[in-house]
């Protein structure tokens, strides 16, 4: 299944998923994992979790970064660039045109109904996506505590997320996880 078609297959798959990723790229992470880890074996589960962590820890649009790292692993630099473009290109066209329409019908009833109906679905996808990632990343009870603590802090405090990442990185560097 590998060979020259892998970069093309990955790029097309990412372009498709980016269009379907309602609520953000994290909502399709389980599907991307299925495709690159389970179905094609391009990455190991460990690598996938690592790329997610690296993308979260570095500045910039982290999902674009994660997809370019996956692309790099699959087919080097050209695939990395293609993966990045596939991740944000199609959605950007959608953002642009959707914003124009949205702006024109700002007070329409259908807009309020759509918002009311889609928001819960979006939220369910985000929480579910995080849970799926936690399942892949957490191999022991210590890391589960880190996950729970991060969730609690962002939910009930206004602490900058960067401090939670730095603390967790320190705990990990000390070999406690």
């Amino acid at each position: 299944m590998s060979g020259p078609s892998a970069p093309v297959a990955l790029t097309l798959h990412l372009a498709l998923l980016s269009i379907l990723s309602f609520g953000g790229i994290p909502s399709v992470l389980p599907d991307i994992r299925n495709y690159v880890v389970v179905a094609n074996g391009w990455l190991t589960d460990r690598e996938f979790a690592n790329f997610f962590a690296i993308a979260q820890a570095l500045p910039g649009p982290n999902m674009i970064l994660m997809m370019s790292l996956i692309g790099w692993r699959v087919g080097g630099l050209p695939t990395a660039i293609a993966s990045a473009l596939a991740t944000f290109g199609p959605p950007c066209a959608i953002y642009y045109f959707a914003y124009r329409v949205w702006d024109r019908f700002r007070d329409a009833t259908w807009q309020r109904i759509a918002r009311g109906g889609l928001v819960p679905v979006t939220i369910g996808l985000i929480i579910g996506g995080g849970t799926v990632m936690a399942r892949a990343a957490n191999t022991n009870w210590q890391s589960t505590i880190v996950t729970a603590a991060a969730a609690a802090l962002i939910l009930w405090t206004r602490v900058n997320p960067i401090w939670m990442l730095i603390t967790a990185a320190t705990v990990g560097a000390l070999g406690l996880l």
Partner: protein
Amino acid sequence: MPVLFIGFLKVAFGSIGGGGGIVFARRLVVEQRRWTDDREFADILSLCQFLPGPNIVGIAVCVGTRLRGPAGALAGLAGFTVIPVTISFSLGMWIVRNTDLAILQGILRGVSAAAAGLLIGTGLRLLMPHRDEAMALFFVVLVFVGLVFTKLPLLAVLLAAAPLSVTVAAISGWGKR
């Protein structure tokens, strides 16, 4: 236009981990530049939130469009992506090449556990305004269970839940505000 480019360049460097970018984008757009007020920014955010794609990039595109049309969208997008992704991608490749280092392994374990928690916490945070709406909670739980506890692909969950949710919203009018 350079202001848009540089503004979103800075936002990108502040956007570490899930949700961090929203904080910095709001600071730039609402507080520093006063391009929009809080209400309009929340509007843009909710639009980007449920459209597909990396939603923080969507903020750059929509704000750019709002100010300068297509050229503004491109300026915001370029500022947000080109330089930050290049730098972080290079750093990421270096980290991936050195994942054998025990200390790096520990750091990544810590960060990925925390990052999963941040995602869950951000989802819960988005849920807070809707915690008294029984139907909204129902659909959040439905999507969560569909994603985490069944082997159904994301698209199946989405195609089942979204039309149902919007229909219920239209009938019950819970999205009214």
